[in-house]
């Protein structure tokens, strides 16, 4: 290369080194700012008219009615049970009234109802002896709600544009660092990524939705992941790109599917069967790679079925409020979880088993609200882990290395010491995509990908990547406050808990804060199954996003779709 070209490349690398973190911060801050914008007054779907003339706004699709202060619709009469009934909005816009095993019963049409009856506006019904009516919101209110100024989110087109610039700069960085034989592939993959992103943007804009923060964060993480894959295992880049496009398709499909709650709840058992079938296939046909038998070979490609089970697991675990209040026990779900975790133990994938277990804890807690149950379950799990360590000594070895990696720096602590050593080499701004040395260490772009982020992208961007996962979780919890159905709320929280815990295992495992387990960083780690599953899980977050005109996976509320 002539001197001038070398000089230009140097100047570019220096500029990009500082420009990329700034760009990343701009993209993510725009997303975070939108995500934490004060929630608007929650949607009002109807009113509950009490004997004293009080009108209680019905703000969710699923509402408990009762005397308790925690009831969604509080009816403070002594004859009413603390949790008496559940009022559910059906898909068609009608309402269903369910007795939740109350002592004194629910009466509609002059008779005590057995389980659930449909309810029309104006119908008089009674909890014990307290008569009430459901009345629709008025035309004026409907108009008022429709005419409320639309919340302006940070312009998604600009965010996508910034992200595209980020991607172009990344590709150039990689081209400068990589050998010429790789350049076509790198260009191709980054172009397709950017194009996919824009096609998605215009597609969703057709449906008049403007909230893209969740997807932008995911696309940002995918971009970082592509760069790490390009640096460490370039031959896997094309496969990873195909997986990302397939993942986006799964995201859109599942998101669309979740729009219809009825449809979704009818599929729960199917999901259960799919999950168990996937595990059965895995155990029967699986082959072992790197200690766990979690791979199956489809001839043209190898997949990890356990990744896809994550989606089905949450689907089956989530529950609507009427079920949740009437059927308090978690028996079937516990059995299901035991089967899943047991299957993972047979396969030998204990990292994923731990992720399933955490998702189970979150779902169990959200459904039951009982800390005692959770503590009991955790105690049982601790016992199981103790047994595991007794009978699978190679796992105990990992625990021996834990917090002692420098004593085993070149043997059992090899990966962690390399992660730390090269992470520290990167400084705050990194050495530039494609210029790292951790890339040559086994599993650099999967289990150790956080180290690669630190080394090539710098501590700032590595921290941003982790924080963006935490932010999505915070956002999900906020959306829950205006949640329509507990099904969406539980599913979204469980999905985000999986993401958070998985990120913890990945980041803290490779940096010796936790024992090394070898799980992927959502969206970033190289791995097709993991990529597709991550997008699938993200659909749950999207379905719980009830901000007006934000999510394609949630039907428009208030005046809109009724």
């Amino acid at each position, binding site marked *: 290369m002539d001197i001038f070209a070398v000089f230009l490349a140097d100047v570019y690398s220096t500029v990009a080194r500082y420009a990329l973190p700034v760009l990343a911060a701009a993209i993510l801050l725009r997303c975070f700012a939108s995500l934490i914008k004060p929630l608007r007054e929650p949607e009002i779907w109807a009113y509950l008219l009490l004997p004293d003339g009080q009108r209680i706004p019905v703000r*969710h699709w*699923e*509402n*408990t009615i009762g005397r308790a202060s*925690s*009831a*969604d619709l509080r009816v403070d009469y002594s004859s009413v049970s603390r949790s008496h009934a559940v009022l559910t909005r059906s898909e068609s816009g009608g309402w269903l009234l369910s007795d939740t095993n109350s002592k004194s019963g629910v009466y509609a049409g002059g008779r005590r109802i057995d389980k659930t009856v449909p309810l029309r506006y104006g119908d008089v019904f009674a909890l014990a002896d307290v008569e009430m009516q459901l009345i629709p919101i008025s035309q004026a209110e409907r108009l008022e709600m429709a005419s409320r100024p639309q919340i302006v989110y940070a312009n998604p087109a600009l965010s996508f544009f910034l992200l595209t610039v980020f991607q172009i700069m990344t590709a150039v960085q990689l081209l400068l660092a990589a050998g010429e034989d790789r350049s076509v592939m790198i260009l191709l993959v980054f172009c397709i990524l950017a194009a996919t992103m824009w096609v998605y943007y215009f597609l969703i804009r057709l449906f008049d939705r403007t909230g893209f923060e969740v997807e932008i964060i995911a696309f940002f993480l995918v971009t970082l992941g592509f760069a790490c894959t390009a640096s460490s295992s370039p031959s896997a880049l094309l496969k990873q790109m195909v997986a990302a496009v397939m993942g986006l398709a799964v995201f859109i499909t599942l998101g669309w599917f979740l729009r219809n709650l009825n449809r979704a709840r009818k599929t729960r058992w199917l999901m259960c069967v799919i999950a168990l079938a996937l595990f059965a296939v895995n155990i029967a046909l699986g082959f072992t790679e790197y200690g766990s038998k979690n791979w199956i070979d489809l001839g043209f490609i190898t997949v990890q079925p356990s990744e896809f089970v994550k989606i089905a697991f949450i689907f089956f675990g989530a529950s609507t*409020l009427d079920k*949740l209040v009437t059927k308090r026990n978690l028996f079937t779900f516990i059995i299901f979880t035991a089967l899943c975790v047991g299957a993972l133990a047979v396969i030998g994938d204990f990292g994923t088993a731990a992720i399933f277990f*955490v998702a189970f804890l*979150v779902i169990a*807690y*959200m459904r039951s*609200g009982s800390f005692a149950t959770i503590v009991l379950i955790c105690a049982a799990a601790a016992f199981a882990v103790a047994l595991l360590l007794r009978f699978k000594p190679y796992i105990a070895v990992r625990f021996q290395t834990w917090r002692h990696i*420098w004593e085993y*720096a070149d043997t059992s602590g090899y990966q962690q*010491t*390399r992660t*730390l*050593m*090269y*992470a*520290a*080499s*990167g*400084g*705050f*701004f*990194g*050495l530039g995509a494609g210029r790292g*040395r951790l890339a040559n260490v086994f599993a650099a772009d999967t289990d150790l990908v956080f180290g690669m982020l*630190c080394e090539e992208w710098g*501590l700032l961007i590595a*921290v941003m990547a*982790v*924080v963006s*996962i*935490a*932010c999505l*979780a*915070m956002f*999900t*919890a906020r959306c*829950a*406050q205006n*949640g329509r159905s*507990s099904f969406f*709320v*539980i599913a979204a*929280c469980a999905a*985000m*808990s999986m993401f*958070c*815990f998985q*990120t*913890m295992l990945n*980041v*803290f495992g490779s*940096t010796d*804060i936790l024992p090394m387990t070898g799980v992927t960083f959502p969206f970033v780690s190289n791995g097709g199954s993991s990529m597709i599953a991550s997008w699938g899980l993200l659909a749950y977050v999207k379905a719980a996003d009830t901000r007006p005109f934000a999510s394609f996976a949630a039907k428009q509320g208030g005046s809109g779709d009724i």
Partner: protein
Amino acid sequence: MKKVARRSAAAVILAAVLTIGLGYFVFMYVTEGKSWATYYANSHLSGAVQSSTVDVYDRNGLPLLTAADGKRAYSDDPGIRMSTLHTIGDLDGYIFSPALKVFSEELTGYNPFSGVSSRADSLTLSLDAGLCKIALSALKGAAGTVGVYNYKTGEILCMVSSPTYDPYSPPDLSESEVGYEGVYVNRFLSSAYVPGSVFKLVTAACAIDTIDDIFTQKFVCRGSLTLSGQKIVCNNVHGEIGFKTALAKSCNAAFAEIAVQLGSDILGDFVEDTGVCGGIGFQGLKTSSGNFDLNGANTGDLAWAGIGQYTNLVNPCTLMTFMGAIANGGEQRLPSLIAGMEGKKGEQLISPVTAGLLKEMMANNVTQSYGSSNFPGLKICAKSGTAEVGSGANPHAWFAGFLDDPNNPYAFVVISEHSGSGSEVAGSIANTVLQALVKS
């Protein structure tokens, strides 16, 4: 729904744990990042001489290893190439490179903010390459080592290991091991020798500390004595002899008796405390360890140990810093291989009083035995050694000491293998090197 919504705190808790853990990582990164990054395996920093991007210079700015046409280039002077080979390392990676090691360890510019990208791209060694060249030629082809350092600052000025070769024409040793002779070993840092009589300094220091009347005792040397059935031969028949003269004449009979007076426990503890027979570490380098083991030793063994034979071994670099400690009033100064960077302060190895008395005796050694005229103009304090290394083999010649001169605060060690008399052969090498150093 309210209840379920409230329970979404579960996701918040996980997010919080993730964030706290991340905060902990960042904390560790900032506080421990340097020790992570400077782990020897970090190929950004160390690596082989060939792949290194670091330019290395001597203290006077003489290039020792630079880049030329994308290749690594050594000095143009073959004498400098050969005498600094064991500091710089070879192109094939047979010889460890202390220079690149101290560079990766001290990395002068590393900080967690800018990572390794802020590292310096050159390293100026404390070595005087010209002095190294003189030292190598003074060895006259004998195997051995010459080391000189400033005992005030710790800077190593001369580090030479022989045999050596020109890195541009490496010997072909793949055929046989005959020509090997430890040519890849840095004898100064990575070897341990039988100390012979230079070890009497240690025995003497222990005696000054332990035996109150040591300076007034009289020993009788009849040329040899027998202890536990072992005959200990002296270099002469010294007759009645005092402590100071016994050191100057290097009287084995007297020092055998002193060792027996001290006993295994006291002498063993003293050697352990001063670390003379251990190894030292500085700037990421570790010297070889020596040996001193009186387990199961009888009186004869103890006597031999006290005069530097038996199973005793010392590392030349470690002994040199012990010489520095004597010069410094007992306080050790660890070496440094980087120009302008002081070595770390070490421990107080011996008391200032003991150090003062030893210094006097070492000055007396020169005037009484080695001849001041052999070291013109040098305020030299030293001890010679002629270490027996097995029957039939010519003994190793040792000469170790320091200049008691605030303008020239140098401690040194010279070993010329199988070369005979310590004071004559090694002493003359020391003189050549020190004269050149003091003049420069």
